[in-house]
């Protein structure tokens, strides 16, 4: 069962940071500031962040940025990273051409 989260709990104000323009998700070019804003907009799970910002939705499916994003959520919410669920891994793990997947496509 998903952890109990009252989304109205106070996590403090969103304060701008000097490195907010640092790119976290390289595939979709999503910055630290955009992800932090999403958390303060109420996106408290990896999946919500992904759907709201596209971070982790690119070609590598978050293989690089997932751990960083998890750490960011944990920090903003003041919880342990272990308590945050991963994104769902999606088929295919690597991009595959339509003609390879399909049958008899020339």
């Amino acid at each position, binding site marked *: *069962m*998903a*952890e*109990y*989260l*009252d*989304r*109205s709990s106070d996590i403090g104000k969103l304060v701008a940071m000097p490195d907010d323009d640092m790119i976290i998700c390289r595939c979709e070019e999503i910055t630290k500031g955009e992800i932090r804003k999403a958390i303060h*907009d*109420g*996106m*408290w*799970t990896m*999946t*919500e962040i992904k*759907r*709201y910002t*596209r971070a982790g*939705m*690119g*070609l590598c*499916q978050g293989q690089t940025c997932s751990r960083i994003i998890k750490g960011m959520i944990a920090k903003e919410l003041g919880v342990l990273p272990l308590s945050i669920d991963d994104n*769902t891994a*999606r*088929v*295919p793990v690597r*991009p*595959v*051409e*339509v*003609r390879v*997947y*399909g*049958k*008899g*496509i*020339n």
Partner: protein
Amino acid sequence: MSNQCADVVIAGGGVMGNATAYYLRKKGCSVIVLEEEMLGNGGSSRNGGGVRQSGRDNRELPLAIYGIGNIWPHLSEELGVDIEYHQAGNIKFAKDERGVEFYKKVVEQNLKKGLELRMLNQAETREICPLVSDEIIASCYCPSDGHANALMTTLAFYKRARELGARFITGEKVLSVKLHKGRAKGVITSRGNVYEGDKIIITAGYESRAILNSVHIDVPMRRKLIEVIIIEMQPKIFPMMITIPDYDGGGYGHQTDHGSFVFGGHIPLENYLRPEEKEVTQLITTASNCNQLVSYFPYFKDAKVIRSWSGWTDLCQDEVPVIGNIDEVPGLLTACGFTGHGFGISPAVAACLSELAVDKEPSVDISGLSYSRFIM
């Protein structure tokens, strides 16, 4: 543990629940939304993003027309998030005379309902949708239909409702409706928590059935898996939503603002898939979707599939949802059984639910969608 009260308690934090919370906050009602998993993890995030009027049952068509006329055009501004709504049309393809005849009837029926649809010949079809296969001999086009980003819409309603003071709690699975002197007065969750409200709204997708069962209400519906593939980012190809007719396997898709192409099809084996507790992408469906897409758009054969996902649709017995007050249990409302075409009407449904919850006449006549239609 804790006892919590609000004017309205909503079970299910999908697009219906989130949007209803938003409209209720605008009316000044206090709202608690309870969600088992996370916000919008059911059909709200697992649909093709179609916002269409064409092909709708007469009972739900007014909701589609109302939403497209009054809500969708300014929803991004209203919610403060770009939900990528585009009134870019919906085109349905015909490969043979059978398809042409089928769509001629569709056009005729829709014109009677006051909806502008027209047949396009091969040249006209290729003009607005240039990449379509040579095999397509005609199409049926509804210019006032369109599409939006379902993920963003669902979360944008949540974000705005939360900003306005709606209380959202995730990790709270609603098990049953609590009655007091015959009226719905609250819900009980699997953590043993009780949430009380003057109005109780169940918008929990297929799970609504089990919750409503606790007060002897049973919406006849079953689950069916749908699967979608995402094609890597492409240059701008065509703006409209595409539809492949069901008799030819079925399918739907559109290009997102990001450039990726979203395509979902049907396979005849859906009713025989391995029964899973959780929605899981099946071994054969991705291949089937690729074949279907290429047979209509050879353009995509060298493009890459970057992702696939699956989701449940909740098929109602007569293929339209149950929306509104449940007369048998005063104070109880629902919106469920959307049968795979709920997203496009979600803002209009939510607006109506919020009106019903404050005992007002809904903006759209939804009497044909009431639960009482199943009582013979």
